[in-house]
């Protein structure tokens, strides 16, 4: 034994100890307050973001309408009633001069305020739809609620120029507001009252479809092979490092790759959903591989032993046991990766998806645009009517993202194994 003096008994209730306890409690309180402040700050930012998007964007889902009385009988439209049924109806009404009739009626109704200039570009199309639905309208006078021009729309929503405000005041009760169905069914346009989000939404959905169809199976198979089959040597280490690096490569570089390979080498059509999907698949795949490997690694080895022990082949072990148990983790990682791809703009600009596309894409090879690019394009427009349309498009994009995250949570809970 050493000859050091024996330890003095610890004084647990002395002043020194009390100070130490007080200091510990203070540190605890401070830490808790800091955490609370961080949460409160994030929540405040989130509420501010959502609030400002919603207050600005909701206007984009509505339109201002003007009540226009039209005497279609007096306009003497030369339309054979037999032609008002079926596919020829549009052509028949257009040929009969319906657009002129609407313009004439508008000029007569508001000679002082600018006549037909008060109406949005395609306002007469609403009259056409109404007549197609009810041909008896041709035989009398009727009042139609038609979409107003951009300037009137902005003024009626309270942000217009002085002269437009005066026009709005003069029109008074003839103006009303309604839900803009065209916004949800149309595509891009030069007139902000006529733009629609459906073209970009459909483009986004098609692009996502290509991305998921490619990146998910390839990513999962790669993760399974690397975890379950590949030997652990220098080559697989190199592959692992490369995959981790790929996940961190800036997205615009994938855009350049897509431009060079898919457009340049393979000659795929510019601006098409399939090229966008391929490019985003390249970007998403490493994320899926990493998430997949982590999920697969988290499956307890005892389950593999158990399955091998009753004579399951390696493939059976993977597909009967490992994959089902890893699926919730893989799906969560996939949806996070796809949600990131859904919000990507830069790589898609590189492959030409910034074009003005006035019709929703029908096929994967049709020219298309996607929601974030549409937001980018509209935010660049000079016309003030695009301001709220931009916010409305952002609202649609956020709703889509929330829906995808909701799906991720649902799938995770559905497939999760309770041990």
């Amino acid at each position, binding site marked *: 034994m050493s000859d050091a003096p024996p330890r003095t008994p610890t004084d647990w209730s002395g002043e020194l100890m009390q100070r130490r306890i007080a200091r510990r409690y203070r540190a605890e309180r401070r830490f808790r307050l800091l955490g609370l402040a961080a949460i409160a700050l994030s929540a405040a930012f989130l509420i501010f973001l959502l609030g400002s998007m919603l207050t600005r964007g909701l206007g984009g889902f509505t339109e201002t309408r003007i009540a226009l009385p039209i005497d279609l009988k007096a306009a003497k439209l030369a339309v054979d009633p037999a032609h008002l049924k079926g596919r020829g109806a549009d052509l028949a009404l257009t040929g009969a001069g319906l657009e002129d009739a609407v313009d004439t009626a508008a000029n007569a109704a508001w000679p002082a305020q600018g006549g037909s200039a008060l109406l949005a570009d395609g306002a007469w199309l609403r009259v056409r739809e109404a007549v197609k639905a009810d041909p008896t309208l041709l035989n009398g006078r009727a009042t139609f609620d038609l979409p107003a021009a951009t300037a009137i729309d902005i003024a009626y929503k309270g942000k217009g120029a002085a002269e437009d405000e005066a026009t709005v005041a003069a029109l008074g009760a003839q103006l009303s507001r309604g839900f803009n169905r065209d916004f949800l069914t149309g595509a891009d346009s030069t007139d902000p009252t006529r733009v629609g989000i459906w073209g970009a939404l459909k483009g986004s959905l098609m692009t996502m479809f290509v991305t998921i169809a490619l990146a998910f199976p390839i990513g999962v198979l790669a993760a399974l092979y690397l975890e379950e089959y590949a*030997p*652990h040597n220098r080559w697989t280490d190199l592959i692992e490092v490369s995959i981790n690096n790929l996940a961190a490569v800036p997205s615009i570089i994938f855009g350049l790759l897509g431009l060079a390979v898919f457009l340049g080498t393979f000659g795929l059509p510019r601006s098409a959903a399939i090229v966008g999907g391929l490019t985003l698949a390249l970007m998403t795949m490493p994320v899926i591989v990493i998430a997949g490997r982590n999920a697969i690694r988290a499956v*307890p080895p*005892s*389950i*593999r*032993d*158990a*399955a*091998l*022990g*009753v*004579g*399951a*082949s390696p493939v*059976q072990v993977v597909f*009967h*046991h490992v994959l089902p*148990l890893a699926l919730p983790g893989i799906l969560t990682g996939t949806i996070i990766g796809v949600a990131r791809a859904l919000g990507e703009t830069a790589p898609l600009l590189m492959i030409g998806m910034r074009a003005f596309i006035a019709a929703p894409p029908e096929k994967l090879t049709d020219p298309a645009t996607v929601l974030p690019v549409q937001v980018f394009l509209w935010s660049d427009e000079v016309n003030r009517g695009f301001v709220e349309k931009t916010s409305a498009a952002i609202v649609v994009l956020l709703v889509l993202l929330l829906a995808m995250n909701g799906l991720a949570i649902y799938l995770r809970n559905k497939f999760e*194994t*309770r*041990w």
Partner: protein
Amino acid sequence: MRDNKPPKMTAGHVNVFYGDNQAISDVSIDIPQDEVTAFIGPSGCGKSTFLRTLNRMNDTVASARVTGEIRLDGADIYAREMDVVQLRARVGMVFQKPNPFPKTIYENVAYGPRIHGLAKGRAGLDRIVEESLVRAGLWNEVKDRLGDSGTALSGGQQQRLCIARAIAVDPEVILMDEPCSALDPVATARIEELIHELRGRYSIVIVTHNMQQAARVSQKTAFFHLGQLIEYGDTSDIFTNPREERTKDYITGRYG
């Protein structure tokens, strides 16, 4: 009464390496047919490693290498023409920690017969599941809740479920790697009873740390130390009259 049947499995001059580390050196042993053989020895002596070479579970360890020969009914199990999947169906295994699949009790037992195509139709599968659970002594406890998750059972029940899963594929040999080390004494007694009942129908090899357990359940005992087989013989001889000094020291608790 014994020794008139040929041994079920024979091992000759088996060496196992993990990388440069030799875990088993020159072990030769005969596993008798339809009896219980116990492997005892201090931790890290290689008895579990040797057990895992008997159905080639060591294949899953990339650095493991086996030399020597192991024969099942005279056929070399490390030969090129031996199918590992079929070998593991013939030589089943029960692990240290109960590891039921996170599926229903029924699915746990039905999995093996299904992948090997042992059952004819749904009724045949039902019969195999019932038989296996009855033989594992679990039927009466679970017959009304076959649809419940296997992981919801207690530890002892889970281990008996794993035994039912192993015998459902009708193996010839069952390897048990410390099957009771995670269980309480009541559950342990239950498993030991079960081993008694299974004897005579299956050749059983059990690794255990518990010498009383080895003495109770086995007819043959092998004592491993530092990767070597020190002594192998009838259980009664090993425990009452060991030939080797080291065996005697171990079973009397001098070390280990």
